């Protein structure tokens, strides 16, 4: 029963997914259906997925996290600075233990940023858009000031493995992605915190009167969102072997786009991890397809935008057909039984 419901709630996403796979099968079957292609896709999916999860968590209460990219870069910069402080300039030779310490410091830095955002949103009741715009701009500035705009590179093998390594033949970042998706899905659907996120998103006042401490929900929410920024940063450090103040800047809007494609309501209250995973796979398939056909990489961006517009269009047509059916049914009933129906049922 349950898998069927999952399929139904994400029906348009499955249709898009199948359409893209069929399109790829027709256009370029020899290169698309290869193990190498899927391996390379599984290296690319985690970065966009973690950023999109971070955005989605903010959207669940009707907020937005515009600081997610600068949090990501901040985490990376703090990590390499800690690494330098521990093991000197030769950061690429740092030991496993100092790598773990550096990663934890970066992780804590990201969580504190999230806690600060959540505090301003929850306790001072400032709209999330403004808080994260301010924090994001400030943090981006801090990143630029610390790095002076340069790229800092040289990570030890332990950190490089997070982005590039293989475990049982599967890329480690992809394994992290699978574990993170399952855990996030569990957290959102099976724990008190997850349920309260949806409740606050549907109706914050009602949530407060049902004894939910919405302030602490906001703080934990933005910490969770920043946690995914930190994960993004770990994978990016491993894959790029460097940090910079303006890495991945264009992904901010893409992560919002992925949320919308994945069925997350930007006004809060709705959105599931399953839909997000599908939407991310779709976005990645488009990008891979464009690459395999040797088209301009910027075509990917245009295609992503077009997919959103197509989805909006089909949703609109579907809902207006449903509306028409409902109206005609009501009218029919009114004709056959004029006394029993009143005008209120029309509305």
């Amino acid at each position, binding site marked *: 029963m349950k898998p069927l419901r999952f399929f139904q709630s994400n029906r348009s996403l499955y249709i898009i997914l199948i359409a893209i796979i069929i399109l790829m099968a027709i256009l370029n079957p020899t290169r698309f259906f290869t193990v190498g292609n899927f391996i390379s896709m599984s290296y690319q999916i985690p970065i966009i997925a973690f950023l999109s999860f971070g955005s989605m968590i903010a959207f669940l209460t009707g907020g937005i996290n515009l600081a997610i990219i600068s949090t990501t870069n901040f985490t990376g910069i703090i990590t390499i600075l800690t690494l330098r402080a521990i093991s000197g300039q030769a950061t690429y030779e740092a030991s496993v233990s100092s790598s773990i310490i550096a990663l934890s410091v970066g992780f804590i830095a990201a969580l504190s940023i999230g806690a600060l955002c959540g505090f301003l949103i929850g306790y001072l009741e*400032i709209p999330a858009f403004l808080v994260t715009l301010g*924090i994001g701009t400030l943090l981006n500035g801090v990143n630029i000031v610390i790095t002076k705009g340069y790229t800092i590179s040289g990570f030890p093998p332990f950190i490089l493995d997070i982005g590039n390594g293989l475990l049982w033949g599967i890329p480690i970042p992809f394994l992290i992605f699978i574990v993170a998706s399952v855990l996030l899905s569990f957290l959102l659907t099976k724990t008190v915190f997850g349920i309260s996120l949806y409740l606050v998103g549907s109706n914050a006042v009602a949530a407060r009167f049902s004894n939910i401490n919405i302030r602490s929900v906001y703080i934990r929410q933005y910490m969770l969102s920043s946690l995914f920024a930190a994960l993004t940063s770990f994978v990016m450090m491993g894959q790029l072997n460097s940090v910079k103040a303006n890495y991945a800047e264009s992904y901010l809007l*893409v992560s919002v786009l992925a949320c919308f494609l994945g069925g997350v309501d930007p006004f809060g209250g709705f959105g599931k991890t399953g839909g997000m995973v599908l939407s991310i796979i779709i976005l990645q398939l488009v990008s891979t397809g464009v690459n395999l056909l040797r088209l301009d990489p910027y075509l990917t961006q*245009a295609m992503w935008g077009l997919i959103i517009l197509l989805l*909006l269009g089909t949703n609109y047509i579907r809902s207006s057909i449903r509306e028409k059916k409902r109206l005609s049914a009501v009218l029919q009933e009114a004709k056959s039984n004029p006394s029993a129906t009143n005008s209120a049922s029309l509305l």
Partner: protein
Amino acid sequence: MFRKILRQNEAYVFLLILALSIVIGMRNPSFFSFENITGFLKSYSMIGIMSVGTLFVLILGGTDVSFTAIAQVVEYAVVVLIMKFGGNIFVAFFEAAILGIVLGLINGLVIHKFRVPIIIVTIATFNIYFGMLYVITKGKLINNIPQMFKDFGNILLFPQKSAIGGTYGLSLMPLIWLAALILGWIILRKTMIGRGIFAVGGNEIAAERIGIDTFAIKLFVFGFVGFLAGIAGVVHVAIVQSVVPNIIVGKELEVIAAVVIGGASIFGGRGTIFGTFLGVLLFAMLNNGLTLLRISSYWYSVTIGAIILIAITVSAYQRLQRAKTNVKVQIQE
């Protein structure tokens, strides 16, 4: 009276600008020179022009992020058109306006017909416009832009000789910014369209019930945003005198921040042209002040972020205080 002024956001931004100019001016008197003031006004003209459009969308109750992509596309297209078919600066502005309005109207149409949040639609169209620009042009720079753009950018009113031999004066670009501000003010304050924009931003359903054509209002706003973005694109090419296809894109959050600092509410229905002007002026002065104080421009983002945070915290604190005084309930038995 005085209290009422202090309660407005503009007053704080104005005081901040005043304080900042005194500090910068004391450390470096050349801040107040005609050359410096006209210089920073010119370099922020493009952002200033686009900020008027952003204000309109914020009043309508949403956030547009596609205007930088529109400005970018229009800038490129107009330069290519002029190179192919020729024409003077008026032709260029005309082409920019038409193209910008068309791209903006597409936004408005989709937003109203599909009933989806403005930010989602504009992110989608941003990706389409900017992506297609790169696909079609292959990201090529244009360095040899037609001479008439350079001539237009170099026109100076009240020209003066500077000490090191160059000339300086008031460029036309800040005047175009001023024209955009005045046009925006007239539309918002003196026309029925303006009343309609505020009404839709305040409560769309109520606006529809009292007979405002919300579709027409939205089309107008997004057409106007596109129009201003197009004009801003031509202004930009006249200032930098070359076309780099990704230089305007990425400034959208800075423009939105300037308008928000100027007191516009992100929930719609509130915002003024004067506040928007002050917001952009503050950013322009900060950028210029850092240079004059010999502070690295790396600090620009930090100061802007700090100002946004302080501004929103102060106004949130005031709101909470006011809410506290309002809920004093007296119970008589």
